[in-house]
Structures are given as structure tokens and as C-alpha cells.
């Protein structure tokens, strides 16, 4: 009776020791954090003696995983952005126009002259001016531009749908292509956001995709959501476009294939530009803040080979003509081409401050967002509020802990002490697991731990009450303990499984703080069941073997 094999004892103690070891770094939070940062810096190549000293603050053989603190505890900025995936359709179709134009011009004898019609953003509409009866033939020619969709799900479909409407050929992106484009756009946006945030160099940002077209960005530490938005919300689409003319009328009719854009610095000044750019920002390989010959802040840039060739050819052919440097639909400047610019580097001048030129360089280096981001949710939590919350949570935990410990001893005596040992171990194990899986502790998460403190004793209470009952009717103390565990087991498991189900649902459906709560609650259930049915039992068996009490004092 009441026996536990030696190997089981070893496994149970080993698991406890492992859990506590994993939890250990959290007891020295700031020290371990500094050491981790220093180690990471050394790994990336830094070799400062001060860094080495910091890295040595925490021995390398000990685990160094820490519980991440959520934004509500550490402070920081949180943004939920939606990628406007439809933006890309328009760009795609616009980019097709020169191709369509050239193709149809070759067949001019048959289909006559053509003209681009204004249309909804997601369609390209070309009118046959002279031979409307040839519209089917023209559509057939345009269909020749279709390419297969490059995605797993859209295999076999082509990327455009060409139809006719009176004398118009109408080009649209196919459904499969739209889906594939959406997917690419969001992935690209995610990558660009990540690069921009890395460029700024904040520590431990969270950048996650949520759902089909959303991006969640969390940056701990100081700073506000508004500042963060300035870095990631700017599209930073840089283009070099030929200038048709200048105007002061923003409603001027630009003509087919052209557009009217405002000047960035001079209000009331507008430019009529050809819509198709000579080179765009994708061709940039580098951008650095610098100063122009007048000492004004400016940005130096360099194109890749193909961009450099296009830029070189264009400048060679258009000496004496102005071209516009356009950033997010605003003309930064429109210099006149003085000479052929080979080599593919140049400088953007404008009315910049030093900060602006630095930020522009960062944005250009990281690349343009493929589509606009709109922000659905933004939260800034000041670090002091977080610190206050941690402090309050800590105190509440300690008080709850002591009160429960005292209450348990008063109610169950020696057995209460066993339950308390299990309870302490329990909290240690929760922290160990949280560090192990790199989970994030939030304020509701702390509430989850406190709740677990209250509920963790439940499993033990179930057992103790059962032992009490069995001790009344039973057959000697060891039998009572054994029966107590046996009979309480189904209640413990059923009760905890049902609570665990709700924790899982919370985790799956919730976000942010709620998810933090679900994690601590779920882990708390696992550890409390473990400690109740293995650890307290083991403690009790050891106690029983030593004392051999004739009568149970439960």
C-alpha cells in the first residue's frame, strides 16, 4: 500500500527542480535582462569590455529565458493596422497600360487609334476611337498579355480578365490573381514594417500578421503609438516621373495617362506628370542622409543595375527637360536634367530638416509599403502605469498567498503545510513554464496567477476532504490516504478539464491581455493538477513512511 516507485519519485522531483530552475532567472529580472542583451550584442560582433562584464553577470550555464512582460506592464505602443490590399490592383493595372498601348499600336491599321478612359480604380478601360467593331479583335490581342497566376491555390488561372463593353476593352484582375496579390501584398507589407522597425532599432518588437489583411505591431518601452505610426504608416513610394507641365490649378485636366500632383513644399503649385514612372523606389539599393552643395539637408541614393540603366538612358534622352521626384503622390522637387546621369546615383533635395532627411533615408532604405496602412487600433501605455501595475500585482499576489497559506494550515494542519509547499512550487512552475515557452505576462495574466493560487488548493482540498471522509469509515490511515486519492481523482480531472477547455477557447479567441490571462490560467491548471496528484501525494507518502501515524489528523 501507499507505495511510489523510486523512479517515479526521481522523475517527479526532477520535473519540479527543472521547473524551478527555469523560473530562477525571473527572480533576478533586470540582471538577467542586461546580461542577455550584452550576450546578444557580443554575438553580433561587438566586443566591449563593459559588455563582457555585463554578460558575465549571469552565468552562462544557467537558463536565461525570461517571462516577457506585456505592454500593459512594461509600457509601450500597440498598433493594429489594416493593409489596403485594393491599392495594389490599381497600380498593377496602371503598370499594364504602356504594354497594352504598345501592343495595340502595332495593330493600328486594323483597330485604329485608342484612348485610355477614366474608370474605377480596379479596371483599365481602353476605347477604340475609330473602329469600334474591332473591339473583339482588340480584346483578343490584350488577352495575349495574360500570364498564369503564380500561387498554389490559383494554379491554372490567368491573371487578367479581358471583356468588352461597347467600344471599350475592359481589363480586370481575375479573382485568383486578386487573392494571390492580396497575399503577396500583406506579406510584403509585413516585411517592410519589420525592416523599418529594425532600422529604428527598438528592442523586442512584436510584428505579427492577424487574419487575412492585418498586422499587429507592438513595441515595448518608451515612445507613443503616434511616433510609431509615423515610421510605419508612411507608404514611402518614391518615383521619378517625366513632367508634362506645371500648373496652379489642381483640377486641371491632365490628359490620358497623366496625373496632377501637388508640390510638397510650395502650396498652390501643381505638376502634370506622366503616370508611368521612369524608375521607382524598388530600384533603390541605398539611401543615406547627406547635405547638398548649399549645405541643405538632402538624401543621397543609389539605384541597382537595371534602375541605373533606365535612369541613365532617360536622362541622356531628355537633357533640358524637367523630371519630378515624387514621394507618396507629392512632388518633392522637379529639377531640370542638366546632363546625362550615368552610374545610377543621385541626390534628392527639398526643403528638409535634418530629422526629415534622416527619416526619409530610413524609409527609402527599408522600401516602400506596397499599399497604404490604416490603423484600426492604437494604444500607448506609459511605462509608469505599467510599473504601478506590476507593483500592485506583486503586492496583491503576496498578500493573497500569505492569506491562503495561513488559511490552509488553520484548516488542515500538517496536510495544509503539504498543500502550501505544493502551492509555492506551483507558482514557481508557472513561471518556469512561462519562461520556457516565451509567453507574455500581462496584467490579467497576473490576475490569472492569483486566481490559480486560489484554485490550485482546490485539488488538494478535494483530496483532503476525501481522506477525512475515508478516515472516518476506514481501515487505517494508509488505506484512507490511498482511497482519498483514488476517489478524488475523477472529480479533480473532470473539474480541471472543463476549466481547461474554457482556457483553451479564451486563448484561441482572445487577443492581447485576454490571451495572457488564458495562458496563465491554462498553465496554472496543468501545474496545479500535477502538484496535487503527484507532488503532494509524494510528500504525503514520504511523511507517512517516516511517521507511521496510527491515526490521521486531517
Amino acid at each position, binding site marked *: 500500500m501507499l507505495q511510489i516507485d523510486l523512479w517515479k519519485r526521481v522523475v517527479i522531483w526532477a520535473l519540479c527542480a527543472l521547473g524551478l530552475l527555469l523560473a530562477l532567472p525571473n527572480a533576478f529580472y533586470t540582471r538577467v535582462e542586461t546580461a542577455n542583451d550584452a550576450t546578444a550584442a557580443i554575438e553580433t560582433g561587438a566586443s566591449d569590455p563593459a559588455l563582457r562584464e555585463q554578460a558575465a553577470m549571469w552565468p552562462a550555464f544557467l537558463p536565461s529565458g525570461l517571462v516577457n512582460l506585456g505592454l500593459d506592464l512594461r509600457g509601450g505602443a500597440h498598433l493594429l493596422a489594416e493593409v489596403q490590399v485594393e491599392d495594389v490592383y490599381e497600380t498593377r493595372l496602371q503598370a499594364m497600360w504602356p504594354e497594352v498601348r504598345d501592343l495595340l499600336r502595332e495593330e493600328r491599321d486594323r483597330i485604329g487609334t485608342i484612348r485610355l478612359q477614366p474608370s474605377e480604380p480596379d479596371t483599365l478601360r481602353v476605347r477604340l476611337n475609330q473602329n469600334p467593331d474591332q473591339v473583339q479583335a482588340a480584346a483578343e490581342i490584350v488577352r495575349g498579355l495574360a500570364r498564369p497566376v503564380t500561387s498554389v491555390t490559383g494554379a491554372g488561372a490567368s491573371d487578367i480578365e479581358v471583356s468588352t463593353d461597347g467600344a471599350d476593352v475592359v481589363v480586370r484582375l481575375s479573382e485568383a490573381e486578386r487573392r494571390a496579390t492580396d497575399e503577396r501584398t500583406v506579406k510584403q507589407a509585413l516585411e517592410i514594417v519589420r525592416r523599418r522597425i529594425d532600422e529604428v532599432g527598438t528592442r523586442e518588437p512584436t510584428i505579427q500578421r492577424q487574419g487575412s489583411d492585418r498586422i499587429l505591431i507592438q513595441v515595448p518601452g518608451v515612445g507613443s503609438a503616434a511616433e510609431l505610426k509615423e515610421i510605419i504608416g508612411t507608404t514611402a513610394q518614391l518615383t521619378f516621373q517625366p513632367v508634362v507641365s506645371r500648373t496652379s490649378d489642381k483640377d486641371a485636366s491632365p490628359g490620358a495617362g497623366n496625373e496632377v500632383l501637388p508640390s510638397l513644399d510650395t502650396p498652390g503649385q501643381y505638376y502634370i506628370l506622366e503616370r508611368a514612372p521612369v524608375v521607382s523606389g524598388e530600384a533603390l539599393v541605398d539611401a543615406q542622409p547627406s547635405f547638398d552643395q548649399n549645405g541643405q539637408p538632402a538624401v543621397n541614393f543609389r539605384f541597382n543595375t537595371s534602375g541605373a540603366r533606365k535612369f541613365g538612358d532617360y536622362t541622356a534622352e531628355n537633357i533640358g527637360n524637367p523630371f519630378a521626384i515624387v514621394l507618396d503622390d507629392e512632388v518633392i522637387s522637379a529639377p531640370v536634367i542638366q546632363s546625362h546621369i550615368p552610374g545610377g546615383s543621385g541626390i534628392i533635395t527639398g526643403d528638409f530638416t535634418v530629422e526629415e532627411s534622416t527619416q526619409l533615408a530610413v524609409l527609402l532604405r527599408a522600401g516602400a509599403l506596397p499599399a497604404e496602412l490604416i490603423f484600426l487600433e492604437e494604444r500607448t501605455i506609459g511605462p509608469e502605469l505599467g510599473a504601478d501595475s506590476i507593483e500592485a500585482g506583486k503586492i496583491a499576489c503576496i498578500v493573497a498567498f500569505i492569506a491562503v497559506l495561513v488559511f490552509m494550515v488553520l*484548516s488542515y494542519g500538517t496536510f495544509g503545510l503539504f498543500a502550501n509547499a505544493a502551492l509555492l512550487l506551483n507558482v514557481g512552475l508557472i513561471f518556469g513554464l512561462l519562461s520556457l515557452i516565451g509567453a507574455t505576462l500581462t496584467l490579467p495574466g497576473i490576475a490569472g496567477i492569483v486566481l490559480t493560487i486560489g*484554485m490550485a488548493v482546490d485539488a488538494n482540498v478535494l483530496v483532503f476532504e476525501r481522506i477525512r471522509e475515508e478516515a472516518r469509515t476506514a481501515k487505517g490511515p494508509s488505506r484512507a490516504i490511498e482511497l482519498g486519492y483514488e476517489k478524488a481523482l475523477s472529480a479533480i480531472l473532470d473539474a480541471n478539464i472543463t476549466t481547461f477547455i474554457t482556457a483553451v477557447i479564451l486563448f484561441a479567441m482572445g487577443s492581447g491581455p485576454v490571451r495572457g490571462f488564458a495562458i496563465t490560467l491554462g498553465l496554472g491548471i496543468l501545474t496545479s493538477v500535477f502538484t496535487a496528484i503527484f507532488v503532494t501525494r509524494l510528500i504525503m507518502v514520504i511523511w507517512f513512511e517516516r511517521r507511521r501515524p496510527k491515526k490521521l489528523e486531517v
Partner: protein
Amino acid sequence: MRLKLVPQNTNWDFFARPTLTLGISGVLMVLALISFLLQGLNFGIDFRGGTTIRTESAETIDIAEYRDAVGSLGLGDISISEVFDPTFGPDQNVAMVRIQAQEGQEAVTAEVVAEVEAALREAVPDIRFLSVESVGPKVSGELIQTAVIAVLLAISAVLVYIWLRFEWQFALGAVAALVHDVVLTIGVFSELQIQFDLAIIAALLTIVGYSLNDTVVVFDRVRENLRKYKKKPLKDVMNISINETLSRTVMTSVTTLIALVSLIVLGGDVIRGFVFAMLWGVIVGTYSSVFVASAILLKLGVKRDWSKPDANAGNQFANVDA
């Protein structure tokens, strides 16, 4: 001398007036629903969209002054409330400023927040903005939907689990108790107009979990006793079971309440609503596992013809060894 919250061998009749207790629960639920329909919940920005700004200053807060400062900005309904908390120091005067979601805007505008901050700073020079949170109406709509789905999903998952592990009558009783607890909690939040935000949904689900925990422990004992006392009337078996588990029920409730009370007093105002929901839920959940779940089980009756004599035969966990 041991502390005993419940005398050792109780023999209380919990079902002397089943119609009365069920009736009281029913009436309370109807009242909760009426309150919910008449005043609705005081939704936080998570569910309604808008912006909340938490401010702190060393000066005492004059709400009228704050209101004057931001009232002229034409931002619609603005609510300002002072926050009190025992953990605040004497120089900590905290207020919450809530701005409704602006008409026709899907996203949040930084300009609005900046305007409000500037206006407040002019009125109270040493003001600091501890947190600024904005949620667009698009997300808030989805959050409500997700929250409702989460609660329904949790309840149905539990229904299925109990049905598998017990009998359908048990499952119905347990779920009735859950609905009871959730409805009463929503009723309290609507009656007291406590802010209802995303964290409260988490609390609701925890209440579901806790109440269930309690109900399952009672049911587990009922199941066991039904096999033990084959001839006794169901009412007696249930009374025996509840009396036997009573001391555990009270112990667990009290330890959980101890933890929650320390949180509500010392845990800061940010999570007070959340803790309040759980505190209320623990009390209601403990009550409902006896007076709703078990009472309904009693009304529904249960199959008594257990062909398997072994008490643990139907329990796949019975052989789990430690």
C-alpha cells in the same frame, strides 16, 4: 484546533423548496435581462470604439475644468471621471477621459488625441498622459462578435464534455447554471454601469470555468452515490452528495475569494472591473451549482438502472496511477 467553516456531518436539505429557489434564480435572471434591455451595458472602447486617455496630475481634479477644456473641441460625447484607488499616493490624481468614436471614421485619428491632450495641458499644466488607447469602430464590432462567439463556444464545449462524461440531464443542469451565472453577471454590470470591456469577457469565461468546476465536483459525487445507494430516492441521494461535498465547496470558494479580495483591494484600479466580475462570479457560481444545476437535475430526473455495478467502471481515469 482546526478551523472548520462547515460542521462535520451536515445533513441539510437543499431541496426543501426547489420551486422557490429556482423561482428566485428565475426572477433574478429576468431582472438582469430587464436591466440589460433598459440601460444596456456601459461598453468600454473595446466594444464601442473611441479613445480613452488616462491622466495624472499632482493637482486635485476638477472635472468641470477638464470638461470645459475639451468640451469646446466639438468631439461629441466626452465622459470624464476621476479614479480613486487605495494604492495611489497623495500626488496621484488620476482621471479617465473618454471620447466617443468620431462619426464616419473607420480608423483612429491622431489629430483628435493631440487636440485633446493640448487642451488638457493648457487647463492643467502638470498633467501627464499615462495611457492613450484608441479603438476604431470596425475592430470594436468584430470584438463584440468574437466575444459572444467565445462565450457560446465555451458553453457548448462544456455541454458536450459533460454529456460525454455523465448523462444528458447533468449536462443540461450544468449549462443552465452557466447561463444563470453569465446572465446575472451581465445584469450586475448593466445595473451598476460598470465599464464592460474585453477583460470582462475573459472574466465571464473564467466564471463559466469556475462555476463548472464546482458543479462537476457535486455531480461527480452524485454519480458515485447513485451507484452506491441504488434504492434511495434521487432527492435524498443528491442531498447526501451535496452535504458530503459541502465542506470542500466552501473551502475552495473561500480560498479563491481570499485571493480575489486581495486583488480587488490591492491590485490597482486597472483590473478592478475584471476582478469584481470574478468575485461576483465565484459567489454566484457556488450558489448555482447547488441551487440551479442540482435543482434542475432533480427536476429532470436521472436514469437509475446502472447495469454496471462497479462505481468506477464508467470512468476512464480510474486507473490513472501516480
